[in-house]
């Protein structure tokens, strides 16, 4: 009993440690003073300033588009890789694929970023494509590292699936492809959605790889935030942070709520 209470204390301490800095960010975004650390009165003016900053707004739009396309591509590649890993026979090709797909999970970002940039430069040199680094190259870079996360999420779901349902469909004459889209995809759809959102948020958040892979005209939001934060704290960034924190919390809460409701419904249906 004694150790249990110790771990509970640590849990609350840890959660406080995780959340206190974020609450402080949110509170100070409503500070009137330009000095982020001195409270001088409530004011929402920094939100107004934020929405007047065209550089930030453009970067938000660029980042959202890149994140959308990267997440979609990552789900396609990651799901295929997960399928190979859970359903294919052991082979040399499978072994190398599984080595490559999970490696980006722990690769230091500076190495991934540097290596991709050098690839793009060499390709432009030899093939003349991509002529210029921009959204396309950031999309390739993000799809590659996000696919690793999708593969992990989807493969754990694929392993839990009851193979006999797929086998039944194929016994009844469905082709492998048809079985995949009509049976497997609906059953793994929660993992596909989770993987998509995870990739979306990873892509939206990435600074280091995007800095290497992007070119002029494809400045992403983290790049703008970083160059501003480097010069010191600024209340406009606090306002931006508040919007990000609130929207992520909202999406997380909604997905949790919907998952719980679906679970309840399926339980009731079972009874």
């Amino acid at each position, binding site marked *: 009993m*004694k*150790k*249990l209470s110790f*771990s509970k204390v*640590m*849990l609350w*301490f840890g959660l406080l440690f*995780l959340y206190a*800095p*974020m609450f*402080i960010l949110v509170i100070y975004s409503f500070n009137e003073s330009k000095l*982020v*650390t001195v409270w001088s009165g409530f004011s929402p003016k920094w939100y107004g300033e934020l929405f007047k900053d065209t550089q930030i707004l453009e970067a938000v739009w660029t980042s959202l588009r890149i994140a959308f396309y990267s997440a979609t591509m990552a789900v396609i*590649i*990651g799901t*295929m*890789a997960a399928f*190979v890993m*859970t*359903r294919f*026979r052991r082979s040399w*090709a499978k072994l190398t*694929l599984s080595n*490559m797909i*999970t*490696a*980006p*999970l*722990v*690769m*230091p*970002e500076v*190495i991934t970023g*540097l*290596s991709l940039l*050098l*690839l793009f430069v060499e390709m432009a*040199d030899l093939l003349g494509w991509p002529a210029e680094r921009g959204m396309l190259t950031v999309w390739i*870079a993000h799809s590659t590292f996000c696919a690793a996360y999708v*593969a992990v999420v989807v*493969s*754990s779901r694929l*392993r839990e699936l009851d193979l006999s349902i797929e086998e039944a469909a194929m016994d009844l004459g469905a*082709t492998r*492809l048809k079985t995949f889209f009509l049976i497997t995809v609906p059953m793994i759809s929660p993992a596909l959605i989770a993987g998509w959102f995870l990739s979306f*948020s990873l892509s*939206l958040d990435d*600074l280091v790889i995007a800095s290497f892979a992007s070119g002029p005209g494809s400045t992403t939001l*983290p790049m703008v*935030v*970083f160059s501003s*934060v480097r010069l010191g*704290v600024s209340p406009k*960034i606090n306002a*931006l*942070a508040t919007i*990000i924190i609130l929207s*992520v919390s909202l999406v*997380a809460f909604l997905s*949790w709520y919907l998952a719980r409701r679906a679970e309840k419904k399926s339980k009731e249906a079972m009874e």
Partner: protein
Amino acid sequence: MKNPLKIIKGRYLTMGVPYLWLLMFFALPFAIVLKLSFSSAAIAIPPYEATFSYADEMLNIALNFGNYLLLLQDSMYYMAYLTSLKMAFVATLGCLILGFPMAYAIARAPARLQTVLLLLVMLPSWTSFLIRIYAWMGILSNNGLINNALMWLGVISEPIQMLNTNFAVYIGIIYAYLPFMILPLYATLVKLDLSLIEAASDLGSRSINTFWKITLPLSMGGVVAGSMLVFIPAVGEFVIPELLGGPDSLMIGKVLWQEFFNNRDWPVASSLAIVMLALLIIPITLFHRYQSRNMENDV
């Protein structure tokens, strides 16, 4: 009848698309980094000299080991590697000390509460990494929250320098990577057979003893995976030492960034990356073994 040719085609396609993509955008780039690390910098676009050149019907290979010699000779690089390894190690230990009891408490909580607690732990990592590091700049700076509070309370009369020190980098790494430590720990702890712990305590083992002899050894897989998930990216970390660290928190990710973006010495940056990779190959292999055991399912 199913067409066997079609099935084989489908299999190749399923395998081929991710395979080619990763070969092209993951494996090939490393080969290029390796090649470039043997090149020398030049004032040109791109700013390096070709390793392979074809002239007079002869293939010329110019290997330049100078970059690696430079890493050996200049103590700045050598120190940066040591500092990175040391700081990543200490921060990983910090994450483990804080994360293990947290994961344990979550794994022992009622099932309904577990999902909520896990969500609470993971939520910060879905918001912006950059912004969470930025939050600490306002807290730790000389006229920041902690110093202001301590001065107001009369504990100190002069602000303590916390921002731009190694201490701030430790806080930053632990703060940013804590969720990645907790998740794999939780995954192994939740599967732990409680009856073993009960048996130990029934037989008179003290709780500390039970922890060292039963709980920790049985959750070693999670400890290793979590530690690698923190340690490996922390070694190459750039954002945290750049924003929170000072002149003495010279970490290798920052040095690589500066060589690349500020000095535009791509070959040296490449050789820095290759040496970093060589240092990390053991932890990466350890993590990979854990991960593939979890993912693969040989039919």
